[in-house]
C-alpha cells in the first residue's frame, strides 16, 4: 500500500483512500459495512466466498471487494442492483456446502430439550460421570426418561441416513444409570414452594433447585406420582432419590401448615387436576397473572413454561406417557431394550456419534450473515457430508463446516506455531490437514479457533478423544 491517495466515488460521494488499499477496507473506513468471511487482511487476497460483492459502475459488473483494490476514478455502489440477490445466492451456496447444523438434529428433536450431542461428547471421551452430571442438571427424571422416551433423537440422527442411527437413549441411560454425583449448588437465598404430584411440577422444582432456590415439594403421599403399579418404578425411585440428594425437601401435604407459607418467596402450584391447588392455605396460581393476589411471590404456570424449557419437555413426554400408563393401559416401552447394557455395544454406539452440534453456534460469522440475508440451510441436502471431527492435540477440526478461507493456515504461519496447518486436496474436498507428529497446545488451539469464521476449528472438550 502506498501513501499516495486516490479519489474515487463510493455510493455517489467522492472519497479518498490510499492507493492499492483493498476495496473492502476502504469501504469500511468510510463507514459502509460490507459482509466478508474469507478476508484476512493480506495484500493480494484471493477471494473465495463471494459475499463481499459491490457494483463497479464503470465496468457495470459485480466485483468482490476484498480481492480488488482502490484506484483513481473508481465508481462503486454498495447497494441496489442485484447485489443483495447475488450475495444471498452466494450465501445459500455456502450454507448448502456447510455440512453441519448449528444445533444437532438430535438435540433439536429432543422433546425434553436435552443437548444430546453435548452428552455424547462426554461419553465419547469416556467421562460417564460428566455425562450423567449434565443429564441430571438438565432433567428431573434422567433415568426414567432415558427408558420411556420416544427416541425422537434417534429418528432425527443424521447417521441414520447413512447406516444406522446412534442409539442415543442407550447412551443416555447407560450414563445416568445408578450414578449419583451432584455438583455443589450455589444457593441464592430464595425459597420456593412447589405443590403438586405431577411430573412437570417436580421438574419445575428441580429446575428451580438447579438455579439455586431452596425448594420444598408438597406432595400427597397416597398418590405418589399417581403410579402404583408403574413398571419403571425402580427408575423413578432412583430419580426421586436424586432429587432428594440434590437438596429438594419433600413434605407431605398432610404435614404442611399454611402458616409457614409466608416463609417462601415463590409459591408454585402446578397441579394439573387442580384439586390440590384449591386446597385452603395454598395460594392459587391462576393462568391469568392479574388474578393473583400476591405479586412478586407467585410464578404463573405459563411463565414457567416459557422460561424453563425442560418443563415443556416434561409435559410432552412425561405427561402423556405416565398418565396414559396410570390409566392402567399396559404400555411396553422399548421392548428390545438391551438390559443390562452391553459394554461393547455401548462403546460402539458412542463412537459412531458424529457429534453434529456446533461449538461455535453463538460466535459464527457464517451464521450472522445467514441471519442478515435470511437464508437457511436445506436440511439433508449438504453438498459435503458431515464427517467425524479430527483431533490435533487440543485443536479439533470439523471438515463439514470449513469454508476453505485459509485463515487458520495464515494464522498458524503468522504466529510461527510449530505445527503449521496446510490446505490439501482440491475441489469440494479441499480441506485443512495436519499430519505432523507435533500437536497443538491449548494456547495455540485457542488462537487458531478464534481465527476461524465458522465452527470448523474448535477446542477439544476435556475428556473428548
Amino acid at each position, binding site marked *: 500500500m502506498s501513501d499516495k491517495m486516490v479519489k474515487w466515488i463510493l455510493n455517489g460521494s467522492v472519497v479518498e483512500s490510499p492507493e492499492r488499499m483493498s476495496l473492502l477496507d476502504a469501504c469500511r473506513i468510510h463507514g459502509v459495512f460490507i459482509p466478508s468471511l474469507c478476508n484476512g487482511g493480506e495484500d493480494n487476497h484471493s477471494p473465495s466466498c463471494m459475499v463481499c460483492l459491490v457494483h463497479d459502475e464503470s465496468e457495470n459488473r459485480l466485483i468482490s471487494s476484498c480481492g480488488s483494490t482502490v484506484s483513481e476514478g473508481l465508481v462503486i455502489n454498495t447497494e441496489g442492483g442485484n447485489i443483495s440477490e*447475488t450475495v444471498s445466492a452466494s450465501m445459500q451456496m455456502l450454507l448448502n456446502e456447510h455440512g453441519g447444523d448449528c444445533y444437532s438434529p438430535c438435540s433439536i428433536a429432543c422433546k425434553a430439550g436435552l443437548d444430546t450431542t453435548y452428552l455424547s461428547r462426554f461419553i465419547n471421551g469416556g467421562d460417564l460421570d460428566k455425562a450423567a452430571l449434565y443429564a441430571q442438571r438438565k432433567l428431573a427424571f434422567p433415568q426414567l426418561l432415558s427408558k420411556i422416551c420416544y427416541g425422537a433423537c434417534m429418528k432425527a440422527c443424521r447417521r441414520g441416513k447413512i447406516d444406522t442411527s446412534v442409539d442415543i437413549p442407550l447412551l443416555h441411560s447407560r450414563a445416568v444409570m445408578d450414578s449419583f454425583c451432584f455438583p455443589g449448588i450455589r444457593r441464592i437465598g430464595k425459597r420456593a414452594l412447589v405443590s403438586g404430584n405431577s411430573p412437570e411440577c417436580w421438574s419445575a422444582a428441580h429446575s428451580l433447585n438447579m438455579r439455586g432456590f431452596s425448594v420444598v415439594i408438597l406432595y400427597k403421599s397416597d398418590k405418589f406420582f399417581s403410579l402404583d403399579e408403574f413398571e419403571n418404578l425402580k427408575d423413578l425411585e432412583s430419580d426421586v432419590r436424586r432429587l432428594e440428594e440434590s437438596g429438594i425437601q419433600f413434605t407431605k401435604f398432610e404435614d404442611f401448615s399454611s402458616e409457614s407459607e409466608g416463609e417462601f418467596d415463590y409459591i408454585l402450584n402446578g397441579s394439573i387436576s387442580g384439586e390440590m391447588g384449591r386446597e385452603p392455605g395454598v395460594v392459587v396460581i391462576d393462568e391469568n397473572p392479574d388474578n393473583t393476589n400476591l405479586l412478586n411471590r407467585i410464578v404463573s404456570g405459563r411463565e414457567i413454561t416459557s422460561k424453563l424449557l425442560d418443563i415443556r419437555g416434561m409435559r410432552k413426554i412425561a405427561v402423556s406417557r405416565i398418565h396414559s400408563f396410570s390409566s392402567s393401559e399396559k404400555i411396553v416401552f422399548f421392548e428390545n431394550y438391551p438390559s443390562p447394557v452391553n459394554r461393547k455395544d455401548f462403546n460402539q454406539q458412542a463412537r459412531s456419534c458424529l457429534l453434529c452440534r456446533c461449538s461455535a453456534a453463538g460466535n459464527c460469522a457464517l451464521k450472522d450473515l445467514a441471519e442478515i440475508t435470511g437464508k437457511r440451510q436445506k436440511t439433508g441436502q449438504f453438498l459435503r457430508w458431515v464427517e467425524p471431527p479430527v483431533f490435533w492435540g487440543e485443536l479439533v477440526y470439523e471438515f463439514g463446516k470449513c469454508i476453505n478461507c485459509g485463515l487458520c493456515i495464515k494464522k498458524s504461519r503468522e504466529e510461527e506455531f510449530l505445527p503449521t496447518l*496446510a490446505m490439501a486436496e482440491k475441489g469440494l474436498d479441499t480441506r485443512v490437514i495436519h499430519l505432523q507428529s507435533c500437536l497443538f497446545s491449548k494456547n495455540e488451539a485457542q488462537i487458531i479457533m478464534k481465527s476461524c469464521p465458522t465452527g470448523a476449528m474448535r477446542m477439544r472438550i476435556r475428556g473428548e478423544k
Partner: protein
Amino acid sequence: MKNFKLINDRSFNRAEFETIFQNSPNFERYELVNHLNTVQDFYGYLSRNSLESLSLKMNLSLNEIIGVASFYSRFRFEPGGRYTIEVCVGTACHVKGAENLYNEFYKLLNLDENRSTSEDGLFSLEKVACLGCCMMAPAVKIEDSLFGPVEISDCEDILTSFLKSSGSVKSSVEIGKGRTQFLLCDCSSCRAAGAGEVLSELKDILSSGIWDGDIKRTACTGNSEASPRLEIKRSNQDTHFYYRVRADQVKSLVRQYAPVKKVRGHLYRLYSRVEDFILGNDKLSSCFCEGAGEELRLATEGAGTLDPLNLDEYRKEGGFEALDRISRQSSEDILGILLKSGLRGRGGGGYSTAEKWKALLAHRHEKPYVICNADEGDPGAFMDRMLLESFPFRIVEGLMIAALTFHARKVIIYVRCEYPLAINRVGEALRILKKNHIIGENARIPQLSIDFEIVEGAGAFVCGEETALLNSLEGKRGIPRPRPPYPSESGYLDHPTLVNNVETFSLLPWLCREGADAFKALGTEKSSGTKTFALAGKIRCGGLIEVNLGITISRIINEYGDGMADGSVLKAVQIGGPSGGCLPASMADLPVDYEALKNTGAIMGSGGLVVLDQHDCLVDLSRYFLDFCRKESCGRCLWCRSGTETMYRILDRICCGDGNKEDLAELKRLALLCREFSQCGLGQSAPNPLLTSLEYFYDEYTAHLQGHCPAGVCKDLITYTIDGDCIGCGLCSKACADKAVSGELWHYHSIDQDLCTKCGNCFNSCPEGAISVR
C-alpha cells in the same frame, strides 16, 4: 471421502532415500513437485517416512508437502499394483463407451469399493481424464503401453498380452541411410494403434538380413484413423503408403520389396478389417490436403516426412532460418512482426500474443522467464502432444525466438506427466541442440546461453491456467493467482514471465520466416493464420488437423474427417472441451474463428473437436463435463467449487429421470452465477457446455424430464428389447456379461430387464439390428 492416512513404510531406508537425490543438489521450494515425482517414481507411492525425510531435506513442514502432493492426481499415498491400468475417460472415449470398458476391467480384476488393486497385486485400475488418443477411442494405457480402440471383448487379451510383453525391453529405432526407406511414425497415438509392434517386426525382418532397407521415424501426419501408416520410399520410384498395417502383415509386405523380385507397379492395399474402407494414395490427398494444399502446414510443417529428432533434416526443411533472421533484428522489430501478423494465443482465450509480448517487453531489463504451457488437460484434445512428439525442434525454436526477444533468464517447458513420449522427445531435442551449441553454455548466439528446462506436471487440469501453472512451477498448489498483477509484471518467482501455449510457439518459426503478411493472408481478418484441431468422435477419419481459421465446421467434418462414420447423422459438434460448447448441426456452416465461436457461447479452447451423432445424449455430455470440472476445480472460489457440484447433482438427477421443471431454470441461474463470479478461466467457462446445450438442445432436456432419453444413453431412462428380426445367432447372449439375454440358438432371444445393466453390449453385437433402445 479420501481418508488421509499416511502409510508407514517399514522397509524404508534412509540411506537408500539419499541415493535417489544424488543428482539433484537443489532443494529450493520450487523443486518440490519435481522431487515428489522422483520419490513417487522410486517407491511407487508416497509413504510417511519418505515424505518426512523429504520435508527435512527441503526444510518444509510435512503438512505443506502433503498439501501440495494431494492437489495433484498423480501422487498416491498407498501402494498400488505393479502395473497401473489407466482407462481414458476423455470426451471422445466417453462417447464411445469408456465407462463400460472401465466396468469390464473392474469386473475382470475382481475389484470392489475397498480394493483398487487386483488380488495378485499386479494391476491397479484408474480413470484418467485424457490420454490424448482421442481418435483411438476408447483408449487404455498400461504403464507405458497404449491400447486403442479397445472393445469390451478385448480387455482380457490386453491384460494377457501386456503381461507377456512386459518383460521384454523395447528396442529403440535406428536411423540410417539406405536405398529403400521405411517411414513410420511411432508417436503415442500410432503406438496405441500398434505402430510399436510393426516397428519391432520390421526391425526383426530387416536385421535378419533378407535385405538392407532402412527404417526412418517420422513426424506424425495426424491421420491417426489410418495409423500405423507405413510409407515405403525408394529412390527414383513411386512412394507407396500402407494404412492400418498389422504386425503380422509386415513380413509379406516387406517381401514385396525384396530386391530379388521385380518392383510391382500397383499399389498394395491392405485390409485390416473386412468392412474397412480402402484408403489409398489418392485417398490421402483427398483426405488431408485438398483445399489449401501443403502450404497449410505451419505448426505441423513436414508432417509425414520429417524425422522428429534429426537436426540436419530440420535445418534442411527451413529450420532455424527464422532464428537467424530474428537474431539480426531488435526486439521492437519482432514485436512489430507479431503485431502485424495478428497472431492470437492458441491456448484457448485467444488473447493477442503481441499485446502480451508488448506488456512484457517493458520489463525486459529484469530478465524475464519464458514458459511454454504444454499442460494440455482438456479431455478430447491432443494437439500439444502431437506437436511435442513430432516437432520438438520447432517448438524449441519458437521458444528461442521468445528468449532472444526478451533476453530471457531461463526457458521452462511445462509438460503434463501423461505424455512421457513428448517429454522424452523434447528432452532429446534439447540435448541435441546443446551438443550443437545452439542453446545452453557456449551457444553461438550469446543471449541463448541460458538454461532450457523441462518440468513435468503432476496431473491437474487447472494448471493449464497460466497463473496456476506458475504456482505449480513454484512447487505450490496449483491455485490461480488473483490478477493483477499479471505474469508479465510479476510471474514465476516474482519475476516478469511470458507464458504461451505450445502451438503459439510452434507457429513462430513459420511466422518469422515467411513474414507477417504471409501469415495474415491466412485465416480471417481478426483470426489470422491456422489452427490445429484434434478431430475425433463419430467421423470416419479422426486425428490432428491443421486448418485455415474461418473454415466452416461442415468442411472440417467432410473434408478433413472424411464425413460422418457409417450410420451416423451429425447432431452436434463439441468444440473446446470442458470450457467450450456444443453446437447443433444447424450451425455446421459457422466459420471457425474466435469471434464467431464466442458469439455462439462456445469458445475455441485449445482445439478439441468431437463430433457427435444421434446416439449421443447432450444431457449426459453436460453432466460429463461438469463432473470433470467439479473434480478439477482447485477449490478456492465458492462458485467453481460448489456451483459446479450443485449443477452436476441436478444434471445427475435429470439423467436418472428424477428431474423436475424448476431444475432447468435453476441450472441456468447457477450457470450464469458460476460464470460471473469465478476468479479464473476454469470456473468462468465450466458452465459453457451446459449453457450451450440448454440453448440449442432444450427439447432434449425436457424429454429427460418426461422420463425419456432420445439418444438412448441415460441408463435409467432406457430399456433394451429384442424385436422381430432376431435370427437367434446368440451373439447378444455371448456379449452380455450379466446373463440377462437368454434364448436357444436359432430361436428368439429375450432380455430379462431385471438383470439388464444397460451396458449396450448386446445392442452393439447384434448383426441384424434387432435390438432396440427406448
